[in-house]
């Protein structure tokens, strides 16, 4: 169960080049990408913070949820986007639509892409604007999102296999390696 305030980012089609610009992809480890999360929207060319960008707004400090416009995470397959969000401290991204590769990358890094209706997304944006202290409760096990201020509780979809992985800390490599016999049998069979 996650209980948190939210950072609003009411922009559609946020691409992974915005989440983490390419010039920050030179690192050879996974650590530290959070400092450059949304770098070109968050910092001025001299490195000082852009005052009205939500990540720089003290009212949203400490939030573990990012609420963003539809088609979040489109573009490049860079997993660095998911690493940057997770490294910054984001646990859940709420949007009305996620790009496929980003959705998979997020799930592989313990970051929950939570899809809601466009109508609820817009209501949530308005609620956060009216009260930046608005809290949400995310219950992965029961696949429910509760927004007390809106008196709203909805369920969300998640791939059952990925839910199992997130709840138990499993990952794909362990599972696939356990299927080695089947893989080797396939390799010996007919290919097209």
């Amino acid at each position, binding site marked *: 169960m996650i209980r948190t305030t939210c950072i609003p980012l*009411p*922009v*559609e*089609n946020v*691409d992974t*080049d*915005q989440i983490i*610009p*390419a*010039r920050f*992809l*030179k*690192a*050879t*480890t*996974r650590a530290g990408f959070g400092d450059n999360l949304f770098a*070109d929207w968050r910092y001025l*060319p001299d490195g000082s913070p852009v005052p009205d960008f939500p990540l720089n707004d003290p009212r949203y400090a400490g939030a573990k949820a990012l609420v963003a*416009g*539809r*088609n979040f995470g*489109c*573009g*490049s*397959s*860079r*997993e*660095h986007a*998911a690493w940057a969000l997770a490294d910054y401290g984001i646990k859940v991204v709420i949007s009305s*639509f996620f*790009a*496929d*590769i980003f959705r*998979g*990358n997020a799930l*592989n*890094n313990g970051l929950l892409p939570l899809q809601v209706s466009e109508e609820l997304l817009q209501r949530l944006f308005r609620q956060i604007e009216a009260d930046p202290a608005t809290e949400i409760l995310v219950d992965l096990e029961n696949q429910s999102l509760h927004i007390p201020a809106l008196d709203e509780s909805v369920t969300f979809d998640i*791939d*059952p*296999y990925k839910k199992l992985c997130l709840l138990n800390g499993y*990952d*794909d*490599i362990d*599972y*696939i*390696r356990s*299927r*080695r016999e*089947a*893989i080797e049998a*396939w*390799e010996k069979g007919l*290919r*097209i």
Partner: protein
Amino acid sequence: MQVADQPKTLFDKVWDAHVVERRPDFPDLLYIDRHFIHEVTSPQAFDELRRRGLRVFRPGQTIATADHNVPTIDQHLPIREPLSRKQVATLEANCAEFGIELYGLGHERQGIVHVIGPELGITQPGRTIVCGDSHTSTHGAFGAIAFGIGTSQVAQVLATQCLLQHKPRSMRIEVNGTLRKGVTAKDIILYIISKLTTSGGTQHFVEYAGSAIRSLSMEGRMTICNMSIEMGARGGMIAPDDTTFEYLYGRPFAPRGKAWDEAVARWRRLPTDEGAAYDAVHVFDAHDIEPMITYGTNPGMAIGISRPVPHPADATEARALEYMGIEPGKPLEGQPVDYVFIGSCTNSRIEDLRAVASLVQGRKKAPGVTVWVVPGSKQVEAQARAEGLDRIFEAAGFQLRQPGCSACLAMNEDKVPSGKYCISTSNRNFEGRQGPGARTLLASPLMAAAAAVTGKVTDVRKLLESAALATI
């Protein structure tokens, strides 16, 4: 009891043949035939193997190159920028440690991963191909299932040669009829994305079909499939035919002799069966397509060159026009450009360079415009020189550089300065994609060449007319 086979799509045939295991409520365990890696999205995957004490399961099926973060001048010298040098050195060390063939800097076959795969004949019909890069969809031009993956999945493929994947839905996009003069594969795909939007293909795998697609060369087909991801699709593919087989014949990794004949016989069974069903179908008329150009900050924000820039429909579009410094309500023709970038996995193949050369032959770039021509591979570069294209570019004042991803994503030093306009043959016009504050106009190589010559956005058909007149 024998059940008659249902008609299947090309996509179904290739996918189903690679399912190692299928269980209810579970993603398919999908076998991956070939895996390409590069310096930017692989280092953390190798770290993952080391952390778990694993070797690469099938090292012969992974192929490496350095492309995303390499300089495009002086490639014979050590890379100046320390982080980039370290990233490329890390790839070299990982390939040596894990036994993976590397077409690295200095190799005569080095180049952009999606250019060298087909060039080497590694990309073949009916294969499953992945790479930690969203433009892996390029390889679908050969009738392969090819898609981009994240670094965690790169580690999975290295460790197991498999991925867990839900089978995407299928979409058929037909483009019928004859292309008009000056209209190329790039214009077709920009037109399709402008109609379906940047998320119109999400959760789908696309098959491109129709007479206009069939008439394209392999280079043109790669350009089409390359940009499938720009409408959110997992990938795009085109049924293999004689054009495909002619391209592949004799390439280093293509089958030879009897094996070639057997392969072609198998490949001829891949095209979609009569009556096979798709989850979505879109049909377009090639005659409706004119040379295209983007005006906003995603590839769906594209218009025919004669059309006015649309008025913004919402805050996101208004923000895009503000970033671009472009006014709605009038055509883009005449918009001055500062940079011209001809390159990227979308349009850096020999056919693209020939198209550019054919237009600029006997002409010069406009004063004040910087023109970068970045070939997709060492082979493309060598071919261009062999055909004398380098002399045409030099006479025109264009810079013919060395292979790499270059200004498409501006990881290296090839950056467009803030506020400057770049007409680019690449695939993404996102904010800051070609450098912080850079303003990108996506277009075909012909349209980019026309802008290079005039210094402003130009309907290439006007230059083609005058070129034709000049030869009379």
